[in-house]
């Protein structure tokens, strides 16, 4: 019964999301686009988190993808869709090299390296003035799909659906059970013969490709890159807060969190233009301290408690 309802709800949400651009104006549509962007980043961040490794480098791979997409279009004249793919490939390649180097170590080393990634590439993009336009960044001569908002929305929507599917596949894979075992007790998992390192690297690459491609789509949609906006802290902090609030270690949590916070954030931006990030910081702290299972986890617990009472 409950599975039946779940399917109906999901179908309804999908229909709503597909039909969305047709019955709303330009402003809600741009909000929806940014919600989708953050949703992808939140889900991909959570995918890596499930392995017991935490990344603070979402903005880094997002920015790398943005720059790769814009620069490959400017210098190589490639079609926009291809440049988005290149954004993902370059982000994935960098993640692969870093991952092979660092993923053998305890979580904190990996966390710091990912924190440094965004900084390193922001500095490179700011200083390679001849190639990247320096602090002013680069402008694209024309937007993807000639700036058609329907098509850009569907492009991001497609990316979100793809990310959710990949996330669900990972959740159902044997690798996932091994990784959950690792997260809960690494020594037990290691002595049971699970080769964790290979899976960690693969998942890190996959999530970075997703983040890079999302950056590429975003850059192609808005037609510019600058070091400050492409490597903005928002792209790390918001997805993190969204995933935590919604509930980590699953697909549903980050999706719910992104919908909720993504819409709220638009209003926050209007009322507190400088410093609205403080809200996300507070959410991160409070969720970690008081409800580490997030909204989805809380809802599941309430439902269970309700079932027990009946």
């Amino acid at each position, binding site marked *: 019964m409950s599975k039946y309802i779940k399917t109906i709800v999901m179908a309804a949400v999908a229909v709503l999301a597909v039909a969305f651009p047709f019955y709303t104006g330009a402003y809600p549509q741009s909000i929806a686009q940014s919600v989708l962007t953050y949703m992808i980043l939140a889900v991909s961040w959570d995918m890596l988190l499930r392995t017991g490794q935490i990344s603070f480098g979402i903005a880094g791979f997002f920015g790398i993808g943005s720059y790769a997409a814009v620069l490959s279009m400017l210098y190589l004249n490639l079609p926009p869709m291809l440049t988005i793919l290149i954004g993902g490939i370059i982000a994935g390649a960098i993640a692969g090299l870093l991952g092979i180097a660092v993923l053998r170590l305890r979580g904190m080393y990996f966390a710091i390296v990912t924190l440094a990634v965004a900084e390193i590439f922001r500095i490179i993009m700011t200083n390679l003035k001849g190639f990247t336009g320096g602090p002013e960044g680069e402008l694209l001569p024309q937007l993807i799909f000639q700036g058609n908002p329907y098509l850009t929305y569907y492009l991001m929507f497609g990316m979100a659906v793809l990310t959710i599917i990949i996330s669900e596949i990972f959740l159902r894979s044997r690798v996932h059970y091994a990784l959950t075992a690792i997260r809960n007790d690494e020594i037990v998992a290691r002595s049971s013969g699970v080769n964790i390192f290979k899976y960690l690297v693969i998942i890190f690459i996959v999530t970075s490709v997703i983040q890079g491609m999302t950056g590429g789509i975003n850059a192609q949609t808005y037609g510019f890159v600058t070091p400050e906006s492409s490597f903005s802290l928002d792209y790390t902090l918001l997805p993190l807060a969204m995933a935590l609030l919604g509930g980590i270690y699953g697909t549903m949590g980050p999706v719910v969190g992104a919908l909720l916070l993504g819409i709220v954030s638009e209003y926050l931006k209007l009322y507190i233009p400088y410093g609205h990030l403080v809200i996300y910081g507070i959410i991160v702290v409070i969720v*970690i301290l008081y409800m580490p299972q997030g909204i989805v986890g809380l809802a599941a617990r309430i439902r269970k408690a309700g079932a027990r009472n009946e």
Partner: protein
Amino acid sequence: MKTSKNLQLTIVGIAAAIGILLILWKPSVLIYGLQGAGLYAAVALPMALILGIVGIINLAHGEFMMLGAYLAYWFSTQFGIDPLLAMIPVLISMGIVGVITYKTTIHRVLGAPELNQLILTFGIAMVLSQVVNLIATSQPRKLSLDYVTASAKVGELSFGTYDFIFVAAAVLFLAGLLFFLRRTKLGKAAVAVGQNPKGARLVGINVDRTYLIIFSIALGLLGIIGTLFLTSHSIFPLVGGSYTMKSFCLVAMAGIGQLKPILWGSLALGVSESFIMSFQGYGGWADIVFFAIIVIVIISRAYKRTES
């Protein structure tokens, strides 16, 4: 054992050779490198203290220094006192901030997975920098103090001498911490807690109180550094972020729980940074030295671990 001694001698020899070459070629690089190294070491020492004893990696480290700097700015502009004098109220306020932060947040995640600790301190960092951003705006602030411009002249070369205060601070911090940890009862208890909290509890040490005290001492030290930082640098809400990473880099190079090697590590980093800055037009690349070194240090650590 013998090979490691030889290796040490070789490293010292190479470092000395580089030092002598630098003195002959670009003496200013060495001077500014030394001054920069003092600042890095002084900021990194409290992080090493927290990581070594409380056992958590504080990603809000640089932000606490930033908070100290803003407090010093507030005290000195509000009451018209010299920022160096403001150091005393800043030290006390940062100690209190330490107690509050520990009691309300850190204390609750001590037993939690490392991921939760990392996310929590990352969240605290965001809250600190954004609250300061809301209250003080992102406009950079700087005090103009006449003693900061003090300079000395040796032969042809003239350089600012004030920033040697960071070298003095780093050496004093290290000496003070080593004395505290080796000679005082509380310090010895803290070392015991750092090595084995369960054992320390068994022999009657109040582990929780020790954590609280160490965390507050570390934040107090950051308050002092923040004040010194304010006297010669301009401050803005995001100024601390890179110091978190630089401190971690030094702590990771030194090895967890080690204090002395931080001095040598920061010397190497400070000098190489000022070396790059000495080339006109390439100063913007200096920051990348650190991040490159972070990655190299961590990779070499991974390599060591696979070997052993």
